[in-house]
């Protein structure tokens, strides 16, 4: 019926078309996040200008505060490098958390419980390793392993509830968030509280995933070891979805449960597995936060990281490499805000406003993309129905 389409199948034109298709897909994937970022930067710029400051100076201060641009002066033992590494230290947990969200989303599940899983993993590792006398060589890998195990179990539980009892994962993860939050704060307040800081006692330096205040030359640097694991995780998640049988199955389940089942894929197993992997990643986010960045746990507080991760993952189009960039961007604003206040006189709250706007616009743009695609699809559908 459509002779004009047939050319696409002829071998000589196929390779070009495919590379063109890839470039096209890449552009499709990045155009909406980029647009969202630009719009929100402009909008926030207007707000900053209205409050009487110079938006360009403010944005530059964000870069300076995160060690991406030189400051005019540095304190003792500090430099652009120390700023940058402390920025890396700050965003490492977010990479894991956003990956956790992305893995679940690819399989069609919504893991809202990343924060709770982080807390459970962080707390367990703190108690078991952080308060022990193990040496660094034994303690650090053990922290990672415990984080993965606890997070994975928490995720698997959610997947199992979904598979066995058809309990919506959104509901069960929210409820588990509460359970983890209050059980952990009870334990901390009863057994592990530091009377001065009102937080849990600090973990041993040997178990800490960030080497704090390490003297290097005339600098004192925080060296975040977790980032290596995070980058490895990015690559592994990419391989999982692009190159493995399991990834193929998870994606099939995420796109269409009925078609996956028809193909003989065990849908329940895939849901449990994807939640487990998601939980493992959330657990890693937990240990890199509580035993890396922080060193202690504040009772009764559930981190925003797990929720922001949803938006970060969306902003990165659920793509592992995209997530690195969206994480760095969102964290840049959070990390640089203190310096922005002192250098440009812009309140730190404005930083939250910018973050909020980017996330809002990117969330909206997911909606716009959906609308655009649906419109396109409807059109195709009606054309199809003609036939």
């Amino acid at each position, binding site marked *: *019926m*459509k002779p004009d389409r047939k050319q696409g199948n002829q071998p000589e034109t196929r390779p070009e*078309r495919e590379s063109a298709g890839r470039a096209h897909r890449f552009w499709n994937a990045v155009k909406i996040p980029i647009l969202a970022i630009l719009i929100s930067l402009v909008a926030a710029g207007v707000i900053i200008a209205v409050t009487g400051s110079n938006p360009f100076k403010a944005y530059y201060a964000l870069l300076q505060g995160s060690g991406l641009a030189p400051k005019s002066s540095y304190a003792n033992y500090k430099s652009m490098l120390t700023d940058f590494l402390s920025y890396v230290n700050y965003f490492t947990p977010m990479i894991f958390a956003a990956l956790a969200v992305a893995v679940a989303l690819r399989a069609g599940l919504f893991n809202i419980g990343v924060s709770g899983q982080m807390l459970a993993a962080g707390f367990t590792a703190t108690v078991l390793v952080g308060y022990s006398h193990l040496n660094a060589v034994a303690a650090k890998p053990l922290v990672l392993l415990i984080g993965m195990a606890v997070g994975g179990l928490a995720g698997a539980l959610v997947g199992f509830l979904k598979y066995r009892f058809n309990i919506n994962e959104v509901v069960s993860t929210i409820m588990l968030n509460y359970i983890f939050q209050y059980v952990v704060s009870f334990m901390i307040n009863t057994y592990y509280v530091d009377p001065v800081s009102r937080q849990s006692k600090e973990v041993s330096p040997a178990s800490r995933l960030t080497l704090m205040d390490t003297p290097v030359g005339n600098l004192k640097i925080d060296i975040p070891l977790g980032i290596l694991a995070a980058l490895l995780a990015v690559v592994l998640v990419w391989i999982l979805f692009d190159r*493995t*049988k399991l990834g193929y199955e998870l994606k099939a389940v995420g796109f*269409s449960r009925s078609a996956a089942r028809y*193909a003989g894929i065990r849908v329940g197993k895939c849901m449990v597995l994807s939640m487990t992997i998601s939980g493992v990643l959330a657990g890693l986010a937990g240990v890199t936060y509580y035993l890396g960045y922080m060193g202690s746990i504040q009772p009764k507080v559930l981190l925003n990281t797990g929720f922001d991760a949803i938006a970060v993952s969306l902003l990165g189009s659920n793509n592992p490499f995209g997530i690195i960039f969206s994480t760095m961007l969102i964290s840049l604003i959070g990390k640089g805000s203190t310096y922005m206040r002192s250098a440009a006189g812009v309140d730190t709250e404005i930083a939250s406003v910018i973050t909020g706007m980017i996330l809002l616009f990117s969330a909206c743009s997911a909606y716009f993309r959906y609308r655009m695609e649906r419109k396109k699809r409807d059109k195709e559908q009606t054309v199809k129905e003609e*036939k």
Partner: protein
Amino acid sequence: MAEEYIVEMRHITKRFPGIVANDDVTIQVRKGEIYALLGENGAGKSTLMSMLFGMYEPDEGEIYIRGEKVKLESPNHATRLNIGMVHQHFKLVSNYTVAENIVMGMEPVKKMLGFLPVVDLKKANSEIQALSEKYGLAVNPTDVIENINVSTQQRVEILKMLYREAEILIFDEPTAVLTPQEIDFLLEIIKGLRDNGKTIILITHKLEEIKRIADRCAILNRGKLIDVLNVADTSTKTMANLMVGREVSFETEKKPAGFGDTVLEVSGLNVYNKQNFHVVRDVSFQIRAGEILAIAGVAGNGQVEIADAIAGLMPVRSGKILLNGEDITDMPIRERTLKGISYIPEDRQNYGVVMDFTLSENLALKNYFKEPFCKKGMLNRRAFEENSGRLIEKYDIRSGQGSSTVVRSMSGGNQQKAIVGREIELASPFMIFVQPTRGLDIGAIENIHRQMIAERDKGRAILLISLELDEIMDCADTIAVIYNGEIQKIAPADTLTANQVGEFMMGVNKKQAVNGKGGRGE
């Protein structure tokens, strides 16, 4: 010229990306006639009528209603001009009653407590009762849509138009979902409507229906108007040739069957659906190598559930399914595939393909876990590409970007070709074809029938489930007729006529059925 025609569409052209759906088409419909639009799938009949119903705007051309030039902006606008349309896929709210569906959008309103406007359902019910009696369209206004059968639902759609005082009634392939007996009944209704002064436009590709009721007939081919004929002076053969644009044979080429050993044996099968209805009742049959067994039946009588149960998508309550003598009743889906079942499902978009996967990923959906596609859990992308390149060529699957096309962007016909190709390539001894040609054009239908019969000749056992009686009569070696989950009759295809099959489909018992007249088509 003005008053003579109630509907005139002049020089209509409508383009969609990559296709000209209507190319300079002019039709003129007289008041009080039955005007048929005849053409293959994709000839542009539905597009033309969608424009008359205000769903699309023509790119070029003009529409005149009762001699006045109009620009139809929406279906609501068309309704105001007394144009009504019964769509191929009914647009009914399934958990509302007949009356609620009919009055929806223009409900009779009464004031509760003197000021609160509420829908006056009692009035609606009585109005609809009166309307249904006037036109002989028997419905019960208080029945819920999901509990009534397809032909009654269609009557509800017709009443919906009449309630809106439609004078020009468009029927889009109204008989596609009906049994022969229901078709007779519907055609009588349509005649009755004409005799009541309505103007009818009938979209169809069934010549016999046109011959029976239409006054005039416009023939479309690939978007172009070929001819407008007086039905009384034209033979169906002529119409068919004009429609397809070449000489057509009404028969599918088929060698006589040579049956081998029993491949599939189903005995005492009982299946309950999710709502715990008993949808398959004590069904038993056997299919031999080299045999096409077709299950005929009106939609929703349990035939799809039989296929799902055999493929493992639906649990079996009792009974046995044997494949080559091996009990597969409780086997997981994947194992059944490996034991040798190919399955072309009814719902191709929700089951047959993962719509957001690429073509190459979809073409390996049943064997991605085997070498060469997968080694030790890692996928070999090149094997995917090679496989899909081969199948694209062999089964003429057309798409925008070859192997890397996302299947969602492909046309339904090509999606189906991909599924059929993939399933045939599995070379399973047993194959299930459910509605394999639904929504496809005549060329594609011929092609799929040819492939199915070729597989039969290779000695595969084939279960064909179809709502199209013609398809069953053309392809089957053995016909089983199902009604209400029960097999009414199993017999060699050459011992049954289409009419007999039709009567079994309605659940009429054997004695009465024997009197049915033979023959189909001409």
